[in-house]
């Protein structure tokens, strides 16, 4: 029985993956259509869209997701009418199409999350209604009407079957000549034979295109007018497209996770081997030892390469997040009467697939917030001496082992006074005096804080700023805020490129073992407990001419631990923010395989995940910045709380 369910689960995974692919292609086309205006629709695009909806309809039927099947059916019919010239794409039609796609996406997502499908509302009526509008008589083809002669790329691949039907390159050429002008003809070698590519200019009605297609010709509308001199770039482009699909393999993320886990096990096994080798070193003659040592180091290096290779496979471009944003911005600006131009930079920056999935909602939220709260109405902007149209920039860039995402608006900026007032009204503690950006960020990220009604559709979808911050921190990243009144707001998210394997320091407290991500540890020192002084309820140690507040992990976590003659201390943070995290003993440094601990039952402050040191026992990974914050918060509270 479990066999059946897991088979079905795997089947559904395939279904979702395939839907994702089609929906991605659909969104790209819709964007292109939208940015080109109503005249920018070409036949090839409509064909692609039609095929994508058709596929989704088919596979939705197979998994018995009737709502998606029905919706895809209506979208497909709508596209068919457009493609066949029975209807023209109006602004209303485009809206209906975009809404239909949005609903389709949400319907599929609802199935994935095992919740009921969202209500279809009037989307289907609008699709059937929009499609009924007949085009004006003179422009039966969709496309820029004033362009003299549309250009086409027509490819003919001869085959024995076609030749038997009397269709060869000469008859094709004659047919093209009769219909228009052949600008260029190029023979091209394909993996399975030869093909002739014609650059052609002329009016082709849909019937002719359909007839030619049924005879084995590929007919593609070319946006820019083709002239003979561009022939080289066209063939290069077409060649690249012809080759691409066969070199791309779609892999289920869980299979990569399995591989990663195996590599993780290898890393652990090698660490153990290293330990055993170190124990026998004195019993082995130096000459033989050297060979053993060299082999061991080679394995380590190869393991590292293997690990990096797998990590690279997991990387996907950040455009998977970005490409959804134009729709969100478009809907919101329309709804709220705002004018916002969206600029996307660094879309090719690559990031771990897992991070992409987790970051989608937070980025969506920041973008929605920017449009809803960040930007002024066009008239306010003009009054303030700014262009009526605001600019929202989303940027991504790889910086060493991290990726930086920025969401930048040139809106009104965050009003610190207003934030403070709202926070007080919500019963949140607000420090006196002017608020710096870090405090501002803390306040707006506090659960229960909202700058507008929670029923506001844009920000009322369950993902608040607190979730944004939590998600970023869970992923071991940082969130920063920069804002200036009247000039705009910038959110900066820095994330590690990948999460799976990290260098860590291993420490013990009482009978517990913990791991600390090495990058967060600035220094490791040993302190004599006798040197500690108590100021109010905080222990401090003299350190580099100043003092270092000491946080004992045993106390923070309430772990029984016997007094030790020496304390091992991790120095976390720099300057004023430096905190010493005291443990019983630091036992070593290891490469660890990071596993998430996402379940709400065990999502606690100060712990970011878990790992395994090879004995099957879970070792918790500490979150030093969170522990330091906690320590600073405790400073302001009476002793005995922790």
């Amino acid at each position, binding site marked *: 029985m479990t066999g059946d369910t897991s088979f079905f689960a795997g089947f559904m995974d395939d279904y979702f993956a395939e839907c994702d692919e089609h929906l991605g292609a659909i969104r790209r086309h819709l964007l292109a259509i939208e940015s080109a205006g109503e005249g920018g629709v070409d036949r090839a695009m409509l064909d692609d869209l039609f095929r994508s909806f058709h596929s989704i309809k088919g596979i939705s039927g197979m998994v018995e997701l009737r709502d998606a099947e029905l919706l895809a059916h209506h979208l497909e019919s709508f596209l068919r009418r457009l493609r066949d010239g029975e209807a023209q794409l109006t602004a209303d039609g485009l809206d209906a199409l975009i809404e239909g796609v949005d609903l389709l996406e949400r319907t599929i997502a609802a199935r994935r999350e095992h919740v009921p499908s969202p209500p279809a509302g009037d989307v289907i009526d609008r699709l059937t209604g929009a499609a009924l509008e007949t085009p004006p008589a003179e422009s039966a083809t969709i496309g820029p009407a004033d362009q003299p002669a549309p250009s086409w790329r027509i490819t003919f691949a001869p085959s024995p079957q076609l030749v038997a039907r009397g269709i060869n390159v000469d008859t094709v050429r004659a047919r093209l000549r009769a219909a228009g002008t052949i600008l260029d003809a190029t023979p091209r070698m394909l993996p399975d034979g030869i093909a002739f590519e014609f650059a052609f200019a002329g009016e082709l009605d849909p019937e002719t295109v359909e007839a030619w297609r049924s005879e084995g010709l590929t007919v593609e509308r070319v946006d820019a007018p083709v002239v003979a001199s561009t022939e080289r770039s066209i063939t290069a482009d077409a060649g690249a497209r012809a080759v691409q699909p066969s070199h791309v393999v779609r892999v289920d993320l869980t299979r990569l996770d399995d591989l990663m886990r195996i590599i993780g096990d290898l890393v652990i096994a090698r660490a153990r081997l290293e330990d055993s080798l170190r124990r026998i070193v004195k019993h082995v003659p130096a000459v033989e030892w050297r060979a053993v040592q060299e082999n061991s180091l080679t394995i380590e290096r190869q393991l590292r390469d293997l690990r990096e290779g797998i990590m690279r496979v997991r990387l996907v471009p950040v455009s998977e997040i970005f490409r959804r944003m134009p729709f969100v911005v478009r809907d919101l600006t329309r709804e709220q009467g705002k004018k916002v131009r969206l600029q996307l930079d660094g879309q090719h920056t690559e990031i771990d697939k897992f991070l992409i999935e987790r970051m989608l909602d937070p980025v969506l939220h920041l973008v929605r917030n920017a449009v809803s709260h960040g930007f002024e109405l066009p008239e306010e902007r003009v009054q303030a001496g700014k262009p009526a149209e605001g600019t929202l920039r989303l940027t991504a860039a790889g910086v060493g082992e991290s990726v930086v995402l920025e969401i930048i608006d040139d809106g009104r900026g965050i009003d610190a006074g207003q934030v403070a007032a709202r926070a007080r009204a919500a019963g949140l503690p607000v420090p006196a005096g002017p608020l710096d950006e870090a405090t501002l960020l803390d306040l707006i990220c506090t659960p229960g804080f909202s700058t507008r009604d929670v029923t506001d559709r844009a920000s009322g979808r369950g993902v608040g700023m607190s979730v944004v911050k939590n998600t970023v921190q869970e992923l071991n990243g940082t969130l920063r805020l920069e804002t200036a009144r009247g000039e705009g707001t910038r959110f900066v998210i820095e994330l590690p490129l990948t999460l799976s394997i990290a260098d860590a320091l291993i420490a013990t407290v009482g009978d*517990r073992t913990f791991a600390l991500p090495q990058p967060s540890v600035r220094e490791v020192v040993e302190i004599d407990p006798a040197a500690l002084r108590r100021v109010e309820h905080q222990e401090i140690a003299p350190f580099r001419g100043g003092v270092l507040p000491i946080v004992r992990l045993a106390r923070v976590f309430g772990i029984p631990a016997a007094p030790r003659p020496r304390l091992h201390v991790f120095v976390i943070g720099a300057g004023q923010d430096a905190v010493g995290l005291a443990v019983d003993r630091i036992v070593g440094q290891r490469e660890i395989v990071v596993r998430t601990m996402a379940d709400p039952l065990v999502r606690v402050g100060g712990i970011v*995940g878990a790992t395994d040191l090879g004995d099957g026992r879970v070792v*918790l990974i500490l979150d030093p910045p969170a522990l330091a914050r906690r320590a600073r918060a405790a400073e302001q509270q009476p002793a005995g709380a922790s």
Partner: protein
Amino acid sequence: MSETFILFTVAGTTYAVRSREVAHVEMVEQVTPVPDAPPFVDGVVFSRGQVVPALNLRARFGFERAPYDVRTRLLVVQSEGRSVGLVVDAAREFIRLDGAQIQPPGTALTDLSGRYLEGVANLDDRLILVLSLSHVLNFVDPVVAD
């Protein structure tokens, strides 16, 4: 429509959970305590390479914890996209129940574990309490929250 259930015992009472909601049943070993987790969470364990919380059902239902022994089991259940291990006294039986055999819990059972129940079934004179996983796994206790 009948479905298969896995039966387990906690503090002398027999409970049932749908077998399709159970990923696997394991011996309990090496639970790592998690500081600041809710009191009914024993800690986390590795289960097939995944870190899952170990939720002690005795503690969840307000009984005294019992030391783990050879019969103690971890039922790794899947609900609402989560994987959670339930620590139970024993889990051995597999039964088939018809939908009609499951009655609403009724007022007599609303105390103690009653609010974690989806229903009650009588099978060969045995009382079987059918667990509502979403209530058991929800951290915020609905009764306390009000």
